[in-house]
């Protein structure tokens, strides 16, 4: 067992957990959290590939590492956009749900 195997398995389980949360949790914010978890697991996979490509004195293959950095930026941009959409939805309807039929009554929201 080396670091790549341990954290590769860790990434696989994180992807599984994230996927489960993404499907089953009805709250959009929790879906965003689960999505981020899933993403970080996928990044760990790239880390494993990079680690196994360690050569010529480098700790890892720089190409997958650079891809992960790009991925982190894009994941953050997507998260920020999703959170902004969610907060706007909450502001307009007084509820944070993505189900169209069971929109809860905006009783305690003065703006709605």
């Amino acid at each position, binding site marked *: 067992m080396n670091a790549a195997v341990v954290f590769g398995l860790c990434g696989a389980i*994180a992807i599984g*957990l994230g996927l489960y949360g993404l*499907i089953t949790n009805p709250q959009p914010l929790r879906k965003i959290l689960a999505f981020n978890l899933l993403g*970080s697991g996928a990044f760990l996979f790239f880390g494993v590939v990079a680690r196994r490509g360690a050569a010529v004195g480098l700790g890892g293959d720089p190409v997958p*590492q650079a891809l992960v950095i790009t991925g982190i930026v894009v994941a953050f941009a997507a998260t920020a956009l999703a959170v902004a959409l969610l907060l706007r939805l*909450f502001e307009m309807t007084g509820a944070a749900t993505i189900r169209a039929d069971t929109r809860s009554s905006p009783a305690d929201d003065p703006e709605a």
Partner: protein
Amino acid sequence: MTIASTYEVALAMIVLGLAAWIITAQKSFAAAGGFVAYGLLLPLVWVRLGGIDVALAEAAIGGGLSGVLLLGAAARLGTTETAVVAERPGVLVRLLASVLSAFIALSLAAVVLLLPDPGPTLAPAAVENSAATGLGNPVTNVLMAFRAMDTLLEKVVLLLALIGIWSLVPDRFWGGRPGMRHEADPRGVLAFLARLLPPLGIVIGLYVLWVGADHPGGAFQGGTILAAMWLLVMMAGLMDAPPISRRWLRLTLIAGPGIFLVVGLGGLWLGNAFLAYPSAYAKPLIVAIELAMTLTVAATLGLLMAGVPERRA
């Protein structure tokens, strides 16, 4: 099992425990708190995997900005939680979802165990060609030269996300200031921190940018630190968010990708290819792009965090 791999297994167990907590916690606020802790742990994993550049990015984004964004959203949405929890899917759906997730996790675990070790690598190619740019950090070389197109597009994605957020603004607030106006006691502890930390943070952010040429670091990591310092000053109420219609702000937002694009087109004009640097000027050009990029990243991330404009200028 050696002492080092015991440590790795322990770290992996804690990371997975937190991951399970993020998914199963009752309250979103507690789950977001778990995500912050998760984000603080991942850099340890990445250092162990030999990816210090990634560890820096993960520390700045995962442990810092993402956590603040999600905690803030969880707190604002706290009142809606009980209504939505009732929409939890039935047992059958949850069972199917867990079977599917377990299947995917197991397949991926098999892939990890079956992948060749040592695997194919581009590391020798990256090191061989590093003389072309004169930079010593292979990851920066990949980001700024060998795969420069990806980095250019990534910055465009950041801008698109910001445009997406701005397009949510109600008409009457167009061009206004994003987010709420923060207030704090000017003699309080938060204002104290917001006066003391940013000068240090700016130095560290620029340091991370500067060492990125030859050691782990770079424009994105440095820019994230600068964005965090800007946010701290705004959160302490010492400075308001700028109206999004300001010209200097718009110019800062496009400076990084703009200069990148101009240099790239220059490469085309000089007869090589799009984004090909003339080899005599590769290093100064890359450093110039990175400087502009750092400012752009700082401004873009800060505004992404600030959110939808909701006040008049």
